[in-house]
């Protein structure tokens, strides 16, 4: 029996408990996340005061800043995991899956950041969008990681996927500062009036800063929860992928064996006669 066949046989008899990707660890993190989120809403929408300049619109920042924070966290994790995959001897796919899961989550959060940011901008600046350094770079960040996710979906083995996306993931980390620098240089040529001044930092008092802090903590916990679940899910997807391939290999080999068996019993008559009657599979 080939290795593939024995693998398959072993796995067919393996027990499969219902459940999923949850463990005690994720349940603890999950509960903490929920609690922190409730605090965030309570402080963000309730206890914290309105801003001197922005009025109530500042409340949007308590979710907006955490979402872009999670995006940065995700992409840095992707870069580190990509580096670990490429530069460790073992080339464990676990790093690749962490990189991919993290990038997926990051991309979703950048999208949310852009939309919520547009809503905030509508209130504070009167426009949904501006070509300032931060917005432009964030938009390009989004597209860059859409590209990363597209590279992950190219056909090939898991190791090929891992290598390609690790390289792209590291290049993205090089691209983003370059883009940011050039966009900042570009927009510094166009000094907007103070009404639209987007670089001015909001003056935040204690309670406001606390609300922001709660938001960042809550969303960091959320990120951990999400990335753990997704990485585990990807491990299972990869396993089933491999098994699908194994099954196909076994089936093809069985066909080949059957063909050989059939034709081994054929009489060794004159070659010309045999050729004429040979079946094609």
């Amino acid at each position: 029996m080939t290795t593939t066949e024995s693998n398959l046989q072993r796995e067919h008899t393996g027990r499969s408990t219902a459940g999923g990707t949850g463990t005690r660890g994720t349940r603890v993190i999950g509960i903490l996340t929920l609690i922190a989120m409730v605090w965030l809403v309570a402080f963000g929408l309730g206890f914290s005061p309105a801003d001197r300049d922005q009025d109530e619109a500042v409340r949007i920042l308590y979710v907006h800043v955490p979402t872009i924070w999670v995006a940065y966290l995700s992409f840095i994790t992707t870069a580190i995991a990509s580096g670990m995959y490429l530069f460790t001897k073992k080339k464990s796919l676990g790093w690749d899956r962490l990189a991919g899961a993290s990038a997926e989550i990051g991309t979703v959060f950048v999208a949310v950041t852009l939309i919520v940011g547009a809503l905030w901008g509508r209130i504070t600046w009167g426009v949904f969008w501006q070509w300032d350094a931060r917005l432009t770079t964030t938009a390009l960040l989004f597209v860059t990681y859409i590209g990363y996710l597209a590279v992950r979906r190219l056909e090939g083995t898991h190791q090929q996927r891992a290598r390609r996306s690790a390289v792209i993931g590291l290049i993205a980390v090089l691209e983003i500062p370059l883009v940011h620098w050039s966009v900042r240089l570009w927009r510094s040529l166009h000094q907007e009036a103070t009404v639209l001044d987007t670089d001015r930092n909001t003056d935040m008092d204690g309670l406001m800063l606390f609300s922001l802090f709660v938001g960042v903590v809550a969303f960091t916990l959320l990120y951990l929860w999400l990335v753990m679940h997704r990485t585990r899910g990807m491990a299972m997807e990869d396993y089933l992928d491999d098994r699908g391939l194994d099954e196909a290999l076994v089936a093809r080999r069985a066909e080949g064996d059957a063909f050989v068996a059939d034709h081994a019993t054929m009489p060794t008559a004159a070659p010309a006669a045999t050729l004429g009657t040979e079946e094609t599979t």
Partner: protein
Amino acid sequence: MEDAGFIIGSYALTFATVALLAWRYVRSGRRLADRVPDEEKYWL
């Protein structure tokens, strides 16, 4: 507070997206787990 819509909307959008992502990950995790033997589940 005429901006209330945008503010509530921002929170709603953020949490809805998060909930959707969480639900999708957990659901696909459960479905996959049914087809994968326990030895492969390194987190158990």
